[in-house]
């Protein structure tokens, strides 16, 4: 029983796009120094992962993948609110959001 509609575009194409976006996001997370930009890059990585999830869900014809994406988006919203609040607090304390100037994460 194969009730899944065949896809017009090869799944491998979607997967390649998702992977590329993921690594662009990773490059931003690694190379940017502004905490907000890093955060932004992480959001991009998360969305790339979402795209992969949707692709697999479509290939499998299973809607559970979309449910997981739904959850990821909701959690991303929660994460963004907390993360941005932290940056605001951080900026108040140190007047900068340059991660190279913040090295408290030791000992």
């Amino acid at each position, binding site marked *: 029983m*194969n009730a*899944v509609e065949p896809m*017009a*575009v090869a799944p*491998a*194409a*979607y*997967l*390649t*796009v998702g*992977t*590329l*976006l*993921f*690594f*662009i996001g990773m*490059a*931003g997370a690694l*190379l940017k120094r*502004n905490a*907000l930009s890093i955060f*932004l*890059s992480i*959001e*991009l990585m998360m*969305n790339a992962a*979402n*795209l992969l999830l*949707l*692709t697999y*869900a*479509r290939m*499998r*014809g*299973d*809607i559970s993948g*979309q*449910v997981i*994406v*739904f*959850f990821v*988006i*909701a*959690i991303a*919203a*929660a*994460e*963004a*609110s*907390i993360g*941005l*609040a*932290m940056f*605001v*607090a951080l*900026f108040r304390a140190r007047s*900068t*959001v*340059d991660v*190279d100037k913040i090295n408290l994460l030791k000992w």
Partner: protein
Amino acid sequence: MNTETIVFALASALAIVFSLVMLFQRKPVKSVLSLVVTFFGLAILSVLLAAPFIAALQVIVYAGAILVLFLFVIMLLNLEQEAADKETRKIHFYLGILAVLGLGGLVTGLTLRAGNPPVPVGNGPFLIPAKDEIPLLGKVLFTDYLLAFEALSVLLLLAAVGALILSKRRFE
């Protein structure tokens, strides 16, 4: 080449190009705005993948709420000038590029070479129908994933409270 392929090509080009803009853009505001465009591209891809509800969320929640929140914070903190600083640690920069290109090249190459992965076809109640996927998604969310859904609502509440506490005037 059917229309779906053309739309796919345009949307993915949009997403990749503007994500690269985000990567190379030094001004945070412009980064955020280019990411908004990327998310629109992703939303289009979502529609192509039979997930119109997710596409709507992508636009409304991500582009509309989260990224606007980013914009608020950037403008609140007035981060314009700080982005222009020069990279001080060369070794870190090169190692970062090496890691990204290495890992990215590796995985992308693998994905391209492997072609369409053999994914077993699912069955049972979660099968995506040809039309009207949204009612099924709603049904699944409020039956099989109800507990996770409610837990998520608590998480969002906690996040709101946490953000409130964190952004209070000072830590004493």
